[in-house]
C-alpha cells in the first residue's frame, strides 16, 4: 500500500485528506481493507464503485463519524473528526438529512446556528446558500413538499453554510434527472473554483469525467487512485467504466490464483511513479490489478 511521509511538509502542502491503512470491521465482515490514498487540496475527487462496496463507510471515516478499526485518517493535517475540523469539513449524507417538517429557511437558520454562526453572519450565510443552490423561490416552503432534487439541494445548502474547505458528498447526484445533475455539477465547479476540495462518491461511472482524480473501489478494497488519463493509459481502456471492469476482473483473477497456489507477492505495494511528481499526485493501483 502507498505510504507517504508528511512530517516535514509545511501545513500549506498538507493534503486535504490522507488515509493510511484504513480498516473497518463490522462483526465478521470486513467493510474496508487496507485503504490508503491522499487527496490533494483543491481537487475534485470521485469515489467510484458499485453499491455496497464501502464508499459510505469510507466517507464516514473521513468526516469522523465512523471509528476505524485500524489505520488512520487525517483531514487538513488533523485527525478526522477533530473539533477544529467541524466547521471546515462539510458532509452531505446519501439520504438528505434535513428536517422535512420545517421550511427551507428554518432548516438553514438552525444548522447555521449549529455551526456557530450568529446575527447578521447567520442571515448572510443563509441568503448566500439559498442563492447558490437556486432555492430562492422555495425558501418558505416546507421541505417535505419539495421535489426530490430540491430536497437534496437543501441538504447540500446546509453543507455550504460555513464555506467548508473540504466537502464530502455521498452520492449527491444519484436518482436525480440529468437536468438537475448538470445544475449540481455547475455548483460543484463553482466550489472548486473557490478552492474547495470535493470528495464525491457515485456509482455512476460517467460522472468520472468531471473529476480531477478517481478512487475506484470494490468490495472494501481500493483498486486504483489516479487521475483519469493515467487510469485509462494503465488499463488500455476507452472509458472509466471499462477500466473499472478491467480492474475488477484482474483483481478477481488474482484472488482466485492466490487461493489456488501459494501466496505470491501480490500484496506488495507497487506504485506507478511519475518522476518528479509530489507524493499526493502519484497514481496508485492495487498490486494484483497490475499486468
Amino acid at each position, binding site marked *: 500500500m502507498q505510504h507517504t511521509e508528511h512530517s516535514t511538509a509545511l501545513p500549506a502542502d498538507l493534503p486535504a485528506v490522507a488515509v493510511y491503512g484504513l480498516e473497518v470491521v463490522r462483526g465478521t465482515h470486513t467493510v474496508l481493507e487496507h485503504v490508503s490514498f491522499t487527496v490533494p487540496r483543491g481537487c475534485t475527487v470521485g469515489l467510484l464503485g458499485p453499491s455496497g462496496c464501502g464508499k459510505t463507510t469510507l466517507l464516514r471515516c473521513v468526516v469522523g463519524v465512523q471509528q476505524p478499526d485500524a489505520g488512520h485518517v487525517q483531514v487538513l493535517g488533523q485527525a478526522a473528526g477533530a473539533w477544529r475540523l467541524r466547521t471546515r469539513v462539510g458532509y452531505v449524507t446519501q439520504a438528505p*438529512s434535513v428536517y422535512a417538517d*420545517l421550511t427551507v429557511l428554518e432548516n438553514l437558520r438552525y444548522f447555521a446556528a449549529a455551526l456557530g454562526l450568529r446575527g447578521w453572519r447567520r442571515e448572510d450565510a443563509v441568503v448566500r446558500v439559498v442563492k447558490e443552490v437556486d432555492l430562492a423561490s422555495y425558501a418558505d416552503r416546507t421541505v417535505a413538499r419539495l421535489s426530490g432534487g430540491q430536497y437534496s439541494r437543501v441538504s447540500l445548502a446546509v453543507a455550504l453554510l460555513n464555506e467548508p474547505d473540504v466537502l464530502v458528498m455521498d452520492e449527491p447526484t444519484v436518482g436525480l434527472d440529468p437536468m438537475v445533475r448538470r445544475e449540481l455539477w455547475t455548483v460543484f465547479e463553482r466550489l472548486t473554483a473557490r478552492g474547495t476540495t470535493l470528495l464525491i462518491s457515485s456509482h455512476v461511472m460517467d460522472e468520472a469525467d468531471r473529476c480531477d482524480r478517481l478512487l475506484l473501489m470494490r468490495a472494501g478494497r481500493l483498486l486504483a487512485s489516479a487521475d483519469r488519463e493515467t487510469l485509462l493509459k494503465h488499463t488500455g481502456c476507452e472509458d472509466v467504466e471499462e477500466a473499472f471492469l478491467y480492474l475488477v476482473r484482474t483483481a478477481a483473477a488474482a484472488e482466485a490464483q492466490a487461493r489456488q497456489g501459494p501466496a505470491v507477492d501480490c500484496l506488495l505495494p507497487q506504485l506507478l511513479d511519475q518522476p518528479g511528481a509530489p507524493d499526493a499526485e502519484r497514481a496508485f493501483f492495487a498490486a494484483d490489478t497490475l499486468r
Partner: protein
Amino acid sequence: MRDRLPFSPTITRATAVRVLQQISRDRGSTALLLGIPCMLMVLLKLMFHDAEPVFERVGPQVFGIFPVIVMYLVASVSTLRERTTGTAERLLTMPVRRLDVVLGYSLAFAVLALLQAVLSTLLAVGPLGLDIEGPAYLLMVIAMLGALLGLALGLLVSAFARNEFQAVQFLPAGVLPQFLMCGLFVPRDDMYGALSAVARLMPMTYAVQAAGEAATHDGVTGLFVRDSLLILGCVIAVLVASAATLKR
C-alpha cells in the same frame, strides 16, 4: 471557549426553538399532547362520580402519572426520528455537543410540559372541583416533574430502540411496571415482600407520593420537597446517561 461550559447556550436555545417549530407544525400532535391528560382527568371524574373520596385520593396522584406516559412517547419518538433521518449524525459532524442536543430537546419539551401542567391543573381544580389541602400550584410542580421524568426516559430509550415500534414497546416494559407499583392501586406498605422495596427504586413512586403529600397537607411539607428533589436528581442522571449514549 469550548471548555468553559459543557454545552453551548446559543446552540441549545436554537435546538429548543427548532424542536418547538417542528411540534407546532404538527397541529394534531400538539392537540393530543395538551388534550389527552385533560381528557383523562374528565374520564376519571366521571368514573368516580358516585365516589367523591376516591376521586379526591386518585385525582392528585394521576398528576404524577399521565405526564410521564405522554411525554415519554413524544420524546422517544421524536428523538428517534432525529437519529433515523441522519440529522443527529449531521449535527455531530458540526461543532454541536451531545449535551446541546439533549438540553435543547429538554428545554422544548419542558415548555410543552408547563403548558400541559397548567391546563390540566386549571381543569382539575376548576370545573372538575378537585379539592386538595395544599396550594394548587403544587399539582403543577408535580405534573412538570412527571413530564420531565417521562422526557428523560424517552430520550434514554431512543438510544436503545432501533425504530419507533421498539420505542413504543418500551412503554409497557419500562413505564407500566412503575404505574402498577407506584401506590395508586395498592398502598406501597401493603405490597408483597420485595415488591415494596422495588417500588422504592422507581421514580414514579415518588411523584405519586409527593402528589399525595400535596393533597393531604396544608402547604409544602418536607417529604414533598425530598420527593421532588429525588425526581429531579433522577431526571438529571437519566439525561446525562442519554447524552452519553448519543454516539458519534
